[in-house]
């Protein structure tokens, strides 16, 4: 390790870190927004489930480098366009979350739904204030996997020239400079671990009843 390299290239590293953050987290947001309605559909209709879940599995099976290369043809973008990476990772996120959301919504106890209906909740409000909150823990679990794997996958984009911290890998390889590669690996892992910890806290905040239950369980 040549430690001096890191402060000398601080601006470059911070810039790539920012790019990495956007390239990995923007797809998570897009994927989440798309996956909730799709997962809801899959939890409601057998036919939708029979189409959506297997297609999600197939999309998820396609290796990232392949998607990065094929998407420009489908989208009509340039191969170096960051949009390719964002769309590819958003596809993975949707593929992963649709199944989580569908399973989580299907697992909401029928009694709870019936109770909400009996209390006068209309379907929309029942979904927003009863069914969806109960699906949050599973959704957070899915988001954690999607976020952590997206952060790792963005680097692969460096093989085609767009990859946030991954550019430290390719550049370090071209110049036979391990310090640069190690810096990229460590920062990418730190980013993933911080994002993961934030999602865990978000999950706790979003499901206050789970804390209450845990405390009640300990007291009893």
């Amino acid at each position, binding site marked *: 390790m040549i430690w001096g390299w890191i402060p000398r290239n601080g601006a470059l590293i911070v810039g790539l870190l920012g790019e990495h953050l956007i390239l990995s987290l923007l797809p998570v947001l897009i994927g989440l927004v798309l996956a909730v309605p799709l997962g809801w559909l899959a939890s409601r209709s057998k036919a939708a489930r029979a189409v959506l879940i297997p297609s*999600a*599995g*197939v999309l*998820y*099976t*396609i*290796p*990232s*480098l*392949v998607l990065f*290369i*094929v998407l420009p*043809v489908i989208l009509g973008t340039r*191969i170096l366009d960051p949009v390719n990476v964002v769309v590819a990772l958003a596809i*993975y996120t949707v*593929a*992963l979350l649709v*199944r*989580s959301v569908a*399973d989580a919504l*299907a*697992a909401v106890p029928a009694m709870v739904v019936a109770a909400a209906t009996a209390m006068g909740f209309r379907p929309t409000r029942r979904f927003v204030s009863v069914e969806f909150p109960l699906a949050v*823990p*599973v959704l*957070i*679990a*899915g988001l*954690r*996997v999607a976020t*952590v*794997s997206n*952060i*790792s*996958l963005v*680097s*692969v984009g*460096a*093989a*085609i020239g767009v990859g946030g*911290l*991954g550019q*430290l*890998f*390719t550049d*370090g*390889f071209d110049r*036979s400079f*391990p310090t640069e*590669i*190690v810096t*990229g*690996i460590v920062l*990418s*892992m730190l980013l*993933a*671990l911080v994002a*993961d910890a934030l999602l*865990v806290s978000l*999950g706790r905040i979003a499901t206050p009843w789970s804390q209450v239950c*845990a405390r009640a369980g300990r007291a009893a």
Partner: protein
Amino acid sequence: MNIVGWFTDPTHWSGPDGVPTRVLEQLYYSVLALLVAVVIAVPIGALVGHTGRGGFLIVGLANWLRSLPDFGLLILLVLLAGVHLIPVMVALLVLAIPPLLAGTYAGVSNVDRSVVDAARGVGMRERDVLLRVEIPNALPLLLGGLRAATLQVIATTAIAAYVGYGGLGRYLIDGLHRHIYVEMAAGAVLVAILALVVEGILAAVQRAVVSPGLRPTDSRARPPSEPKNEPTRADAPDRPNPDMAGVT
């Protein structure tokens, strides 16, 4: 030349850069890595799941390693050790072991306690409890871990072409460097087909070997025997449903 032209051109089907050679190279790296990973990870995961000791280490390790950027790891290893079998194997093992370990551990430790007690009750020895009761009951999650590991390994083997390895990734990387888009597209199609075929085979294997009594696991809520000592992990992605254990 369009992509159909590429696939029907006989020169692409023979020699060291032909499709059959590249497919075999790809399978060689992937299968070897997966075999070694199974030999290492399944016994450890099963033992930890059986004894219930050290589970938090496995879950922690699997979560931690999932954040490791495989592309960076591969480049670093090749830069330090050169392009030969060992660096790519180490990189692939680092990827393949966590999902297998987590899947085996989660599978074995989630087996209903009353089933395990019943096995002991009828006089089974510990070895038989593990091999004839816990492992068969753990198969859905264990094979889920294997499928996740397989996807990772195939995808990363394709990326290994970037640092000079063979395999189907060569078409992607060579096509990129030579600006021959059709070669890249052909490579992309081949890698995608390979991944889908292998995934299909594993899904069929899973259907064939998993006991019918365990079938509806996919949508089942978490079993009641979930270890109680890990409240913050109760919702953690340590239960590798095949779609959940990370991709490359």
